[in-house]
Each structure stands twice: as structure tokens, then as C-alpha cells.
């Protein structure tokens, strides 16, 4: 499966970044292959945005190295900037200007002008279904359209690598789906490599590979499917009257690992159906609700870090 002879688009080795006393990234290493949609999943404060800013040449590493297209993010920042497109958490569009004016400015920043620029603008806007809206002021666009216009902006100069930081935050599920389709079109038509950061599980599910970051460390890296498989078996969640006592009884009577997370008891096991029926027979009157599911990426996160995704976000 692995193509070792291909130069990675991104290569990060022992990357650390500190802000004064605080460590935002601690020795992170990974590589992104050409044409991949690569997700950085983690709670806020997990180090995603710091890593993103290093790769976007905005922040120098404290230790270790980060290379994009084989070039160093500090020494060769200019050469890298020509080949990357960046979409930030906040759309980088001027609200007082129209969509087309914004894209024209963007093109100029990349040395595009005249007919070549017009052709690219038409291509970028049509592909994302925004050609008809090109003369609208950005301030009049809905959040979803604004995001798509920002994606058109980031991809206008035909970058080989697109970096997106929480780019679908604040969008409703339908707009998020549109945005994701836009991304996948870019990858399929232009072969763009995409790295995105997210704290949304469903967004991470749509990536080819996902790196899970927590507390500045890389805790897991694989395809979503392989990550889920690594947790194994099935997950049963039980809402019970006294979760603590329930957890203990499950451990004692079934010999299964159980955790109390968010007021619910979470049991991981191989034979989900059998265990579920067993639990119902044994503790029927204590159970308010019980669900059985395959492990999600959230379960992967819990298994790898020992705590909930939300807790990490709050701390």
C-alpha cells in the first residue's frame, strides 16, 4: 500500500512548538502523500492550529523540522507560499468587496492578471457553483456561500497543496456537505493534496487518513476504517440510574472493561448482541436506555487518550 518512492508533500519530524511555558506541539512526526485528503483531528487546544500555522509558513517551529514539497518551512517560505493555498478559520474575504473583486485581488497577490486570471476565476467560481454570485458583495452571502467563496479564493492560483483550518466550522450539515464535495472535486480534477484540521468526527471520517492530536502529541495515525478497527469489537452505551455501581457490576459479573463517560456507562466487547442481551437480562430494571454501535472515531480518541474528546476541549 505505502508508496515509499514518492516524495511526501508534507514531512514533519520531531516538530515541537512552545509559547513561553506552554507546549502546543511536542515532537510530532508524520508524512502526507501526494493526492491525499489528510485530516488533523483533535479537540481545541490539541495543537492542530499550531501545526497548521507552521505548515502555512506563518510560525517557525521551536524544534524539529517541517518540510513542504521537500522545502523547509522557514528557509524556503517564499517558494512554499507559491505552491500552497490556505483557507483559514475565518474566511479571508473582504466583506466590502464583491466575490469577483476578492478573487481578482487574490490573483494579483499571486502574480496572475489579465485573461489568465479571468479564466481561473471563472473556473474556480463555476466549479463551486458561485459564478452567478460573482458580483455580490461578500457581506450579503450566507455563511455557507462565504465559505465556498473562500475555498475558491484559496484554490484560485492552482496550488498543489491546500491547507484548511477548521474551514467548515459554523456551517450547517448541508452546507458542510457542499463544502466537502467542493474539496473532493478539487482533489479529483486537479490532484490537489489536502490537509485539513477539524474537531468534527464526520469531517474526519471523510479523510483518507486521520492524525489524532491531543495535548500537542500525535496519538494515532491511520485511515478512519483502520483506526476504528484498532479499537475492535463493538461499543455498548448504557444510561443507568447509578452509573458507578453499574460499571462495577459489569466488571464483576461479566468480566468486561467498562468506563463511565458523560454519565453513561461505556462497555467495549466483541460480541455486542450477546452482551447487550445479557446486560438487559441481568440489570433490566436499572437500565434507562441501551445502544449498540460500531466504534466511532470518538471511541478511538477515548481508547487512545483515556479521556473524552469534550473533556480535552474544556481543559
Amino acid at each position: 500500500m505505502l508508496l515509499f518512492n514518492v516524495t511526501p508533500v508534507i514531512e514533519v519530524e520531531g516538530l515541537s512548538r512552545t509559547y513561553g511555558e506552554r507546549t502546543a506541539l511536542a515532537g510530532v512526526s508524520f508524512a502526507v502523500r501526494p493526492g491525499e485528503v489528510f485530516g488533523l483531528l483533535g479537540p481545541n487546544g490539541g495543537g492542530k492550529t499550531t501545526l497548521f500555522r507552521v505548515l502555512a509558513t506563518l510560525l517557525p517551529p521551536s524544534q524539529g523540522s517541517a518540510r513542504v514539497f521537500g522545502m523547509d518551512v522557514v528557509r524556503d517560505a517564499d517558494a512554499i507560499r507559491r505552491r500552497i493555498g490556505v483557507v483559514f478559520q475565518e474566511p479571508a474575504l473582504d466583506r466590502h468587496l464583491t466575490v469577483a473583486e476578492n478573487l481578482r485581488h487574490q490573483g494579483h497577490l499571486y502574480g496572475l492578471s489579465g485573461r489568465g486570471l479571468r479564466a481561473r476565476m471563472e473556473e474556480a467560481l463555476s466549479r463551486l457553483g458561485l459564478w452567478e454570485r460573482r458580483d455580490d458583495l461578500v457581506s450579503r452571502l450566507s455563511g455557507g456561500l462565504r465559505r465556498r467563496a473562500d475555498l475558491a479564493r484559496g484554490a484560485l492560483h492552482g496550488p498543489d497543496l491546500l491547507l484548511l483550518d477548521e474551514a467548515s466550522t459554523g456551517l450547517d450539515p448541508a452546507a458542510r456537505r457542499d463544502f466537502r464535495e467542493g474539496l473532493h472535486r478539487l482533489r479529483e480534477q486537479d490532484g490537489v493534496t489536502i490537509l485539513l484540521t477539524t474537531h468534527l468526527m464526520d469531517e474526519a471520517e471523510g479523510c483518507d487518513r486521520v492524525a489524532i492530536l491531543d495535548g500537542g502529541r500525535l496519538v494515532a495515525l491511520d485511515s478512519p476504517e483502520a483506526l476504528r478497527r484498532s479499537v475492535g469489537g463493538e461499543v455498548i452505551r448504557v444510561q443507568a440510574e447509578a452509573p458507578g455501581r453499574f460499571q462495577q457490576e459489569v466488571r464483576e459479573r461479566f468480566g468486561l472493561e467498562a468506563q463511565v463517560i458523560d454519565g453513561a456507562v461505556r462497555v467495549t466487547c466483541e460480541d455486542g448482541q450477546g452482551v447487550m442481551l445479557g446486560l438487559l437480562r441481568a440489570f433490566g430494571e436499572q437500565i434507562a436506555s441501551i445502544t449498540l454501535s460500531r466504534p466511532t472515531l470518538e471511541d478511538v480518541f477515548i481508547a487512545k487518550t483515556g479521556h473524552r474528546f469534550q473533556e480535552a476541549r474544556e481543559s
Partner: protein
Amino acid sequence: MLAVWTLWLRELVRFYRDRHRMIGAFGQPLLFWLLIGSGFGGSFQAGGGTYLEYLYPGTLMLVLLFTAIFSTISVVEDRREGFLQSVLVSPIPRSGLVLGKVLGGTTMALLQGVIFLALAAALGISLRPPAAVSALGPVFLVAFGMTGLGFCIAWRMSSTAGFHAIMNVFLMPLWLLSGAFFPRSGAPAWLGFVMEVNPMTYGMSALRQTLSAGSSVQAEGLPSLPLSLIVTAAFAAFTFFLSMVSVRRQK
């Protein structure tokens, strides 16, 4: 160059679309001039003319200051809205970013200055056209310096409220003590010293002397015109340099 041009153009388009800013940067000094100039008119003694006449070049300075400052406030907004980030990750040199932004602000201040000069007759100020034209040099230098200064301040600010605070406690006093509002001759010694080291004093002096076309009454007690121009140009170069350093340092 294309990048400088596009950033410059953007400033202008934004300013034109955001007419409240345009009116605010122009109307406030004008109102100031009318009310204070008329109110003090009777008690003002320095020089030969009326206080309205004395305050006219000072008001021009205020128009330049306000326009330059308001245009650089967009740096704070750009940072918040993410626009600035997209410029920072583009391949344009940092100097291009500063130049585009500062020239944009300077151009707008220059335009507002020209409008204000054109209104002289309507405001009852006798201003000979050659004098108005010769004032454009100092107007440009002052506008460039103010925009550069605004840029340095805005680059460090995370909110527009912070910028307004600096404006009120730092820039407005500098303007008040530039000889725009009252001449140095009547001020106590310590204030006179502050006025002497205030770079705005020299811009003010250059504006006043070119506008009065060498009339000795207005030029009394002011630094010479060449000195005023040199200090003003040096200040403009200094703030531009400072802006470049700020942008380079920030990673």
C-alpha cells in the same frame, strides 16, 4: 508591484464604499473648525488674521490625521477577518504589504486634503491657488507619515477599541501641541519644549507656511520651511521603516 497596486486599490474601494468613514474623517474636523474657530474668534490675539484663519491649516492637518488613522484601522479588521493572514501566506514580500497599505491610506488622506483645500473659498478663507498647490508637497509628506504611524500602531492592536484609545490619549494631544490649535509663542516653557520635539509641529509648520505663501505674519515663531520639510520627510521615512520592522518581526 502588482501586489502593491492591488492592495492600494482595495484600500480605495473600501474607503469609497464605506462612506461613513469618509464623512466622519472629513466632517468632524470641519465641525471642529467651525465651532471652535467661531467660539474663540473674539479672544484670539496672535498674528494678524482671525482665529478661523489660524485654525484652517490645523484643521487640514486633522483631516489628514483622521483619514490616515481610520484607513489603518482596517489592519486590525483585516487581522480579525482573516484577510491579513491570506496576504501573509501569499508570496508577496512583506515590504509590498506595508507599501500597498500605507500608500492606500496616504492617497485617501491626500484626496480628502485636496477637497478640504478646494473648499477654502466656500469657507471664507482666502487661499491663492499657487499656495494651495505648493501645500500639496507637505500634505503628501504629512499624510504618508501619519499613515505609517497608524500602521505601526494598528499592527500591534488586537481590537479597534484599543486603537481608538491610542488615538485619544496620544495622537490627539500631539495634534493639539503641533501649533495647529495655538501658537508656541503664548505657551508656557514646558509646553513649548513638548511642541518643539513633537514631529507634528514641523508638518504643521510646513503646511502653515506653504498655505500662507510666505506671509511673515503666519510664519512668525515657526521653524524654517526647509527644516520643517526635512523633519516631516524624515518622520515619514521613520514610520515607514518602523512599519516594515514590525511586519518582519511578527511571525
